[in-house]
């Protein structure tokens, strides 16, 4: 599937905020779901871009992350069964996570981004019940960015000691002893 087809298909899963809750229980083949596909995509829910990246990028709000990821994995047309990279990000104001996905069947690729402006208590739903590899990689993000993953089975520091203060990969992290700043 090329990027355009992917965008149309994925956009059709989340027609708008209200319809989303209904669609979850309605199978896609039914007429009710067909009708909703033509409705315009609410830009605050999912936004697509191919600018400045070789992949199709989707930005999703934290509350829809898990349901989007589940559909990307389970839908036979998308079949994104391989989470090949999970990256923590600090965009300055916002913290977030970037997921790189690939389908081993169709070999198409996709990037999903999720952001939050809450730097005190950033948290997203875990995806490690969808891809087992997320277990360790989410713990790595927890170490270095302080992002918490709800429902993660074993969320504790993977690399850092328990008494480590601060989150080293955040942009505002200061360590005057060990960091050489140029």
């Amino acid at each position, binding site marked *: 599937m090329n990027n355009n087809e992917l965008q149309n298909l994925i956009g059709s899963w989340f027609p708008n905020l209200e319809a989303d809750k209904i669609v979850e229980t309605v199978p896609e083949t039914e007429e009710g779901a067909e009708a909703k596909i033509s409705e315009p995509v609410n830009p605050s829910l999912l936004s697509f871009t191919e*600018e*400045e*990246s*070789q*992949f199709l990028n989707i930005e999703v709000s934290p509350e829809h992350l898990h349901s989007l990821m589940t559909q990307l994995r389970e839908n036979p047309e998308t079949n994104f*069964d*391989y*989470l*090949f*990279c999970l*990256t923590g*990000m*600090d965009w300055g104001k916002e913290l977030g996570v*970037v997921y*790189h996905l690939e389908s*081993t069947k169709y*070999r198409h690729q996709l*990037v999903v981004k999720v952001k939050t402006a809450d730097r005190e208590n950033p948290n997203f739903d875990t995806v490690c019940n969808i*891809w*087992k*590899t997320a*277990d*360790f*990689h989410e*713990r*790595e993000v927890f*170490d270095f960015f302080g992002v918490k993953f709800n429902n993660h089975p074993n969320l*504790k*520091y*993977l*690399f*850092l*000691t*328990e008494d480590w203060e601060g989150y*080293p*990969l955040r942009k505002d992290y200061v360590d005057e002893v060990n*960091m*050489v*700043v*140029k």
Partner: protein
Amino acid sequence: MGTTTVNNNFKSEEYFINMGPQHPATHGVLRLLLTIDGEIIKKVEPDLGYIHRSIEKMCERDSYQQIVHLTDRMDYLSSHINNEAVCLTVENALQLEIPERVKVIRTIIGELTRIASHCLWWGVMGMDVGALTTYFYGFRDRELINDIFEETCGARLTMNYNIPGGLMYDIHPNFVQRTKDFVKHFKTKIPEYDRLLTGNVIFQKRMKGVGVLSKEDAISFGASGPVGRGSGYSCDVRKHHPYSALDKVTFNESLKTAGDSLARYEVRIMEMWESLSIIEQLIDNIPEGDYKVATNAVIKLPKGEYYQKVEAARGELGVYVVSTGTKNPYRVKFRSPGLSNLSLLNHIAVGGKIGDLVASMATLDIVVPDIDR
């Protein structure tokens, strides 16, 4: 080092032991916390971070030329391939036209690196399961490759031969002949490996049916390299996303479907044959031309995000660079094969014995600096 406390909810017959961080079978400073019942493993929990250097943070203050040198220190047995991954990312972002000569040389040295890495793995793998002789055989042949590298790259382990735009310098005049000599030599040695270890009954019994990983789990755990291919999962980046000169050669993806330790072992042996074949196809046809193209002394990548994946000796290495258009990257992420491969260790080791854990770990072929980046 994240977990120094142990879960205390033991049943009376369960207990806890440390394996590592200095245990020889953990291949570096990796500590495994084992919960066992008699000799049966109930849980394996890796405790990481003993040698974490925060390479990703260091990258944020370094120039793109400097980053290349840091990647040597991740999976040091694939250092050339790691360097290549960063160089390809930068070159693709700048849309540089790389000379064919560079691509072919990079691929040849990359495959030599893979053979050298597998030689070392084969040596220590045998040692892990009690066959000390393999260690000397493996190192004997790896030395020959290191000698070739030393002559051309100036280093035996952390080669730093790639730079953004090409190679540090041209190949040594002896390179072609020595590589051909090595290929001829090594073709007589792989059958020797098989005679010594592969067919050995004791070895086979240690490996067969041990640490079984299904194809579905391999994909879900993000397994790559020989670990994924031992489970029948076609995951060779060289096939699916070819880079450098790999689209000009023909080779078979080494696949086994059993998913056990023996399958992973056999995949690596097969890969050595395939690497030899790739080298043979290219070594006589290294195109003439420049060994690098000029880049600016200060490289600034256009604003945007770049991702490059390559097939390192241990699996898929990904380089994710976010640039804001300055001379330093805003964020660099290395997707290392080791961390994903290690994360499935608990899954394949539970229910087995400690001796099986050693065999499983040996065939995962973990290099700890690759995990503790």
